[in-house]
């Protein structure tokens, strides 16, 4: 399914507001443009947060999955 390799994995399960997005923005700065970061959260709101964050920062959400309360994102650094 995923034709990309994950450069970094970020576990944000159980973090309080707004840490998942803060962590994502900090960690994505550490990978190269074009690379992909994988992120796990338990926040339902992140399903809207991460795409709107990606839109406002010019990055891209490649995919998201929900499995038993854990939300799994693949985000590509584009800038």
């Amino acid at each position, binding site marked *: 399914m995923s034709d990309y390799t994950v450069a970094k994995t970020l576990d944000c399960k159980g*973090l*309080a*507001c*707004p840490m*998942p*997005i*803060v962590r994502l*923005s900090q960690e994505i700065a550490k990978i190269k443009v074009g690379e992909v970061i994988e992120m796990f959260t*338990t*926040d*339902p*709101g*992140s*399903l*809207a*947060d991460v*795409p*709107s*964050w990606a*839109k*406002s*920062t010019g990055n891209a959400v490649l995919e*998201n999955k*929900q499995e*038993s*309360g854990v*939300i799994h994102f693949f985000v590509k650094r584009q800038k």
Partner: protein
Amino acid sequence: MEAATQEALKKLFESKLNKAMRLYLDTCAHCGLCVEACHVYQAMPETKYTPVGRAEVVRKLFKRYFKMQGKIAPWLGEVIELDDKSVNMAYEAAFSCTGCRRCVTVCPFGIDTQQVMNIAKLLLIGAEKQPQILAMLSDMSIAKGETWKETANDYIAALNNLAPEVEALAPTPPGRPAIPIDVENANVLYVGLSGKHSIVPAAAILNAASENWTISHFEAVNFAAWLGDGEKQRLIAKRIIMEAERLKVKEVAVVECGTATRVLKFMTGSHPFRIVSIVELIARYIEQGRIKVKPGTISGTLTYHDPCQLGRNGGVMEEPRYIIGKLTDKFVELTPNKEANWCCGGGGGLISLGEHEFRMKTGKVKVDQMRASKADTICTACENCHTQLTELNEHYGLGMKVESLTNLVAHALTGFGA
């Protein structure tokens, strides 16, 4: 600093000079009464951490650019110029202030340091020295005002996944989903945060009250309020106001978040619906007998931290105590409390900004209060305070339990119909 930037900053400054600001900037007697009122100064007794010291940075610029005195005899008031140095001073002043407004209650003139710091924050935005994290989070929230429709299905799916957790606390009224969304003409629009801990307990309470409610697509928190960007603050709040208008709800209940509550309740003008804190709603449900809580679910003694924006700045002080009275008879107050309560040190966006070391230092007064209370559990009604209290508890090894009031209520719900 370039002359053009200086001019632009002067304009920004001027745009902030309403009646209150002019009075604040003109009147301070340098009496120093506010000095001891600030928790930051209590932990780090330096002039730059006093309320008056913070406001002076702005006041000295005011004298320099907007007052005759600063032009004729600048040395009288030790005025400063708009340059990189003063912009850095403005940063230190504004983002070491949690905007708790404890100093407002102590100053003989009621000078509002939080308001004065909003001038400093606007100058930082103009000079592009604003904290990037808050700017980024604000932009995210604003972008969500447009992208929410695209992601709505994913969000609804995630909410549905929470149903078992909600139903473990209280049954869902027949014919409704555990977490309803987009319900037109609902009585209550509940605005939570991103995390499920801000959704599940509240959902259980609303269901236990058989309320006709609906959840917001948006998070209540307003990062732009901390950033000091009035326009972005308005846009973020507007998403929720528009949703409430679209659904024609009677009431908007805001999650345990002091700043979000204050912004929505007091800074968005008047609406055909009421805006309350979830704490007020819970108190009302208990009072009207719409929900029942069983006492004794909390072991040991319980104390309560008044979130500054909810209590002193929002007027919600008796409701949490009323609720707690139903939960336990082993309640102890922190001293001082209510309008005189010490800020926990987590306000003003400092949690979002990280600032762990600074927050742990400046939380010292709070820690002393917590220790003196000898309580086993401390609860509060603000996500920021909750995070800060949790970190203080760990950092200082207090061994207390830190709880959210809504969560305590949700776990004490009882007396369901069947």
